[in-house]
């Protein structure tokens, strides 16, 4: 499938939650799209609307020129005619059928057995789903979906049913499988690491609407607003106010502390987004450095997270820096230490 997928849907759920999403995906540029957002933001519901498992109150769903749903034209294709294969969180393999029978459920036998061979499942062909590991079940479910020659592949939190170790291992395999399949896919996840590992294109969904779409790295680097920044895992999203501007720089105040950022025409109240890894921690004021923003602060806590250390600072406002665990050890950072936080002007992102 090529062209653009458009899913513009409104739906009010019985719980009172209102979904009002306008999702557009350039299918040519995006083999794998990640639908990303916090739990309860309506991602799974939007996926079900696209598959035809639920009906929008109003809207259009049109993948690559075809029309699956259109209230104004009274078109509502059943899921059978959309052929958007759905991968459920717990894979929904038919428990009364063997792996081979599951894969051959909606495909000719010989095509199914060719797929089993190709994806390395031939050895499991006669096993029942309940005797498989989570990772194997996921693979079988994916191959079963591919065997039905879907127009689109929809995956709802495909890794959440796996244990942590398997999840990390499976992440990259899953992306390879999706790319190899040649079928355009939409993956729902609330995990930033998964989004980065799986997707080419990112659509951020918050409170029932699509807030930002674009290539994964671009969306994560330049979040459109404070909520997107927060859900994309930007460590510091701080309320700020523009107080002055000159020479292409804008001065913002966070409480009583002033910082310089690149002037992109923002005015008034806004949010300053600073990634933890863009903050350098120094023992002294680091005079003679080109970085314009130097903040005196105190270390409040140091937490090790694998290869990195999360350093919580108090600079008149709370600030979280992420440094390598090695640096934190070399500097012997302790709670209570006086340090200087150095932030380049270009690392400051101002959003509404």
């Amino acid at each position, binding site marked *: 499938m090529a062209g653009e997928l458009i899913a513009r849907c409104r739906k009010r759920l019985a719980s009172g939650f209102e979904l009002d999403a306008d999702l557009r995906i350039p299918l040519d540029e995006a083999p794998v799209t990640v639908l990303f957002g916090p739990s309860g933001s309506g991602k799974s519901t939007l996926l079900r609307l696209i598959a035809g498992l639920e009906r929008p109150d109003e809207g259009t769903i049109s993948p690559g020129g075809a029309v699956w749903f259109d209230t104004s034209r009274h078109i509502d294709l059943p899921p059978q005619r959309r052929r958007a*294969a759905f991968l459920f969180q717990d894979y929904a393999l038919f428990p009364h059928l063997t792996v081979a029978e599951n894969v051959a459920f909606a495909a000719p036998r010989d095509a199914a057995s060719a797929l089993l061979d190709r994806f390395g499942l031939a050895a499991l062909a006669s096993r029942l789903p309940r005797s498989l590991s989570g990772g194997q079940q996921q693979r079988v479910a994916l191959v079963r979906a591919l065997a039905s020659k879907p127009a689109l592949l929809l995956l709802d939190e495909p890794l959440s049913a796996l244990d942590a170790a398997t999840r990390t291992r499976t992440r990259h395999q899953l992306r390879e499988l999706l790319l190899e399949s040649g079928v355009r896919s939409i993956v729902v996840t609330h995990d930033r690491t998964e989004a980065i590992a799986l997707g080419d294109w990112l659509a951020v969904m918050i409170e029932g609407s699509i807030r930002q779409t674009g290539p994964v790295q671009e969306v994560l680097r330049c979040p459109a607003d404070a909520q997107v920044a927060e859900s994309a895992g930007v460590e510091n999203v701080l309320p700020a106010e523009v107080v002055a501007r000159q020479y292409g720089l804008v001065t913002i105040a966070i409480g009583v502390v002033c910082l310089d950022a690149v002037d992109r025409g923002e005015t008034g109240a806004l949010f300053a987004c600073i990634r933890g890894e863009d903050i350098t921690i120094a023992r002294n004021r680091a005079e003679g450095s080109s970085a314009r923003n130097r903040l005196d602060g105190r270390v409040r806590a140091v937490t090790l997270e694998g290869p990195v250390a999360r350093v919580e600072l108090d600079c008149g406002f709370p600030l979280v820096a992420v440094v390598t665990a090695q640096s934190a050890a070399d500097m012997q950072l302790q709670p209570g230490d006086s340090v200087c936080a150095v932030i380049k002007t270009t690392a400051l992102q101002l959003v509404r």
Partner: protein
Amino acid sequence: MDWQAIALSLRLAVSTTAILLALGLPLAYWIVYSHRRWKFLVEAVVALPLVLPPTVLGFYILLAIGPRSPVGALYAKLTGGLLPFSFAGLLLASVLYSLPFTVQPMVAAFGAVDRRLIEASWCMGVSRAATFRRVIIPLARAGIATGAILSFAHTIGEFGVVLMVGGNIGGITRTVSISIYDQVQALNYTAAAHTSLLLLGFSFAVLAVVYALQRRVWAIWPVS
């Protein structure tokens, strides 16, 4: 023992169960998966025979199939016979009387099938009918078997409805329970005791099978 009555009861029970399976599967499917608001009315009607005295049910069926009713008139026109006090009339009454015994276990079993299995099948392009046949029925087979066995046993034991609709004609409508009643009326206690014991043993065996099915005493799925 009245072998003629036993044979008739078996014939009635087999026919009733066959008809109820054909009728109950789509009806139970509709009850479980329909989104109609008035669904509860159909559920209540299906369950009516559970609470209605058999004589009341029998009385209405008798009225409904009488020669002056549309159903009775149509039947007379097609076959030249009358429905009341005939095997066909008895069969119709039995089907209505045992309907909840077939439908309710099926409704419970269909409702227990994971909705996502059904949706996964639909999304792979498999029609609703084929999904019903290939996913829902195999996964609900314990419930379907329970429904069939219960309606079979219930038909064997029915008395009031049979008496109202079928009367007591040897070889045509005299079922085993009517035969026992006759034997008692005729003070033939030995014959009544034999037939009663047979029914008691049969009923116990049926219920044992039903509960075993529900507890999955036997492996429902083949173990690989």
